[in-house]
């Protein structure tokens, strides 16, 4: 694992237990149960996506992990240290990037990073090396003397990521890091996060841009109304909830009966098929099947189509996207 310059990134310190662990965390704000019995763990080198609609309890959970809020019940641990009883030890191991910049006036990029390096107790050469590596990693070398106020949003976000990682934490908690960024900045940020995870850091990330999370997250947790409604890899969650499979089919135009129109008519009469649409790119439809028997159902349908003497040139199924899963999982499950 190397930084942009090719220099190796520092490895995280040894840890005891999972880097992130939430144990039956509850948080009430007066009558609102913002976080309701949330438990999960994040392993070293894992990127863990935390998704949910606005007000679901993502930020509250993250603030609890960052020791900025306390759970009403339960506890959370960073590298085995309780966020309630040992917040000081948690802080030295955690990098927290909130959903706002938190910048100072009259300070340039280098001074900003230097301040946080000092605030994390880095001294002398160690501090200088940390700043250099961070600027290198985030691509801010050229902007070292530029006042923060003059930075673009993307650059500010990079700077905030740099501030979060300046003390080489083993755990990073990133709250909506890609919010408001243009596509290019998002791709760059995604790459940086992947590299951090590759270096062994446990990364907990929340985002509204679900397609991006799907690409970089090893696992995701979906939270709604303060409760976790699903935890696992995107595939695992998809498999659990998948009842309708999107299928695309292309056939040879042998004759009127055995061409595209024929197959559309044939499929429309099939018991497990729905929403059949013929387009110039082929036929699209949905197949209803039990999640555990998804592949068998597909194979059976293909055999039936071939058996009906249609010349199949293409038969593909698309798994559910994270967005589909999210919408499916959160739809009215928790009230």
């Amino acid at each position: 694992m190397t930084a942009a310059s090719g220099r190796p990134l520092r490895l995280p310190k040894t840890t005891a237990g999972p880097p992130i662990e939430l144990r039956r965390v509850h948080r009430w704000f007066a009558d609102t149960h913002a976080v309701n019995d949330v438990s999960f763990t994040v392993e070293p080198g894992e990127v863990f996506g935390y998704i949910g609609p606005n007000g679901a309890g993502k930020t509250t959970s993250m603030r609890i992990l960052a020791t900025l809020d306390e759970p009403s019940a339960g506890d959370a641990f960073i590298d085995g240290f309780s966020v309630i009883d040992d917040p000081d030890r948690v802080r030295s191991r955690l990098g927290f990037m909130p959903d706002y910049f938190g910048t100072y006036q009259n300070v340039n990029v280098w001074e900003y990073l230097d301040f946080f390096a000092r605030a994390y107790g880095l001294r002398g050469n160690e501090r200088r090396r940390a700043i250099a590596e961070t600027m290198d990693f985030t691509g801010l070398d050229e902007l070292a003397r530029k006042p923060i106020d003059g930075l673009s949003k993307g650059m500010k976000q990079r700077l905030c990521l740099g501030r979060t990682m300046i003390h080489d934490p083993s755990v990073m908690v990133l709250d909506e890091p890609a919010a408001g960024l243009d596509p290019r900045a998002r791709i760059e940020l995604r790459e940086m996060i992947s590299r951090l995870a590759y270096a062994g850091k446990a990364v907990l990330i929340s985002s509204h841009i679900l397609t991006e999370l799907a690409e970089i997250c090893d696992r995701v947790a979906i939270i709604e109304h303060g409760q976790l409604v699903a935890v696992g890899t995107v595939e695992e969650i998809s498999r659990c909830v998948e009842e309708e499979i999107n299928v695309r089919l292309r056939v040879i135009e042998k004759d009127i009966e055995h061409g595209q129109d024929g197959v559309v008519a044939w499929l429309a009469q099939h018991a497990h098929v729905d929403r059949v649409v013929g387009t110039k790119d082929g036929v699209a439809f949905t197949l209803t099947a039990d999640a555990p028997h998804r592949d068998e159902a597909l194979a059976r349908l293909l055999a039936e189509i071939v058996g009906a003497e249609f010349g199949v040139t293409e038969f593909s199924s698309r798994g559910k996207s994270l967005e589909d899963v999210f919408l499916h999982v959160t739809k009215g499950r928790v009230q």
Partner: protein
Amino acid sequence: MNDPTALDPRSPEVVAHRGAAPSGRLERWLEAAGDRLNPILVKETRQSLKSRQFTLWFVLLLIGCWVTTIGAIAYVGPSIHYLSLGGRLLFVYYVILALPLVVVTPFSAYRSLSSEHEENTSDLLEVSSLTARQLVNGKLGSALLQIVVYLAALAPCIAFTYLLRGVELTTIALLLLYAVLASVGLSAVGLIVAAASRQKYAQVVASVVFAGVLFIAYSGLVAAASELIRWDSRLLHSDENFWRQLALLSLYMTSLVVVYAGAISLTTFSAANRSTALRKAAFLQQTVFVAWVAGRVSSGLSREAVVQYFVIAVLYWFVAGALMTGEAPLLSLRVRRTLPQSWLGRAIGTWFNPGSGSGYVFAVCNVAACGALASWACRTYAAVGNVSWETCAKTIFLLTSYLVAYLGLGRLAVVGLRRITEVSSLGAFLIQVLVALGGSGLPFVVRTLNERVRVDDIASLTASSPAWNVPRMLDGSLSSDMEIIVLIAVGAVAVAVFFVNLTLAGHEARQLRVAAPRRVIEDDQDQHPVEKQATNPWGDRPTPAAPAS
């Protein structure tokens, strides 16, 4: 043109050579010293040097001094050689200097911490490894640095006033000391105000009130400076003034310690021990206060004055007690890891631990101790005055009983309310004040509503009012029957309330130290490895175990 043989300035050879040279050593020393500087101080200094506000005030200060100097010289003309202008010119310089010192610097300190909350950077500081102490030290250090810069800018003008004659060096030093102490003290107050007001509306109110306080302090300081310059050398040569100054200084220093501990307590995380340092600071202040009063008693203080000083102590412990009884009743695990273990430690240290019950007992013990000392002083040492020592003792007993009763009743009200709803520390404090004011003000309200009502008719209402009974007890205007009723009634209520509170506080006193989690012990060992101790008188240390193959 580039010389290929030239060494890179960052190459090890150059660095080693530079390190060996005296300038290199100085550079390394400065670098090491810079590393040890408070990060907040470094950041604030960098920001201040680039800020328009600091530049503006600095330039205005210089312009003000130049205009004053040139104007004064031009106005006086050649007679400057004969007139003793020093005092008058010093006053003008002081008026100019005191503004940035007493108004601008403390308000900057307040704004500095307040804007951390506004801009959400306080969250970033909280999640860093900075401690609350470092944060407060950094902000105070930054204020101190500004003070030094302003003083340095004005130093030539101040020296000039001494050369003009008419003012003593000690007066100049004293004036500057006052300004510096006022600036540091008000900056510390600014920090505590900023730490306490985190909500937007509270910040707005606090800004306005604090700015008002600063301008009042500025006016006060300028007025004091005028007096001081008028007194000049006679001030310190007067014995009484000398001791008064010293007493004020010790009061200031102990108050600064309390405010400093308060600011740290409000800034640190909730699981930390927010109370012990503050209680120690309050105890220190009380000790210093008692020492000064003892000094005055030995030099002939009257009995009435001793009681008056005791009233101050009671008011002090009522406010401190009202704040302490608002603390959370449960000790965090983190605090319980550091509880005293020995019998003596538990007997004394328990009341310094955070907690509502321990706070109540702590305040009561302090007032009782002060009361005992005051009674003893009235009987044995104080000048006789107009009041018998028995009257003084009765008044002291009554005051102590009122404090014990009101603080205890207020605490019980808070404990009861906390079973139903959440009550913040500020809310608990306000409840305490309301309970005390309600009880005290009752007879006055009745008299105000019906002026024709006789005192005898409302005798039963007056028993609850310290404001009614204490002055009457001291000047002997209470009837002997009423005296006995009040003493017995208030004393009995105080004893009952104290024992109810003591019983409720029992669980706080019974808390035992808990062991730190294994992970914490491991981390401590990683960070501060302890060398194995010798296992025999010859100092042989155990040999490290051979690594497993």
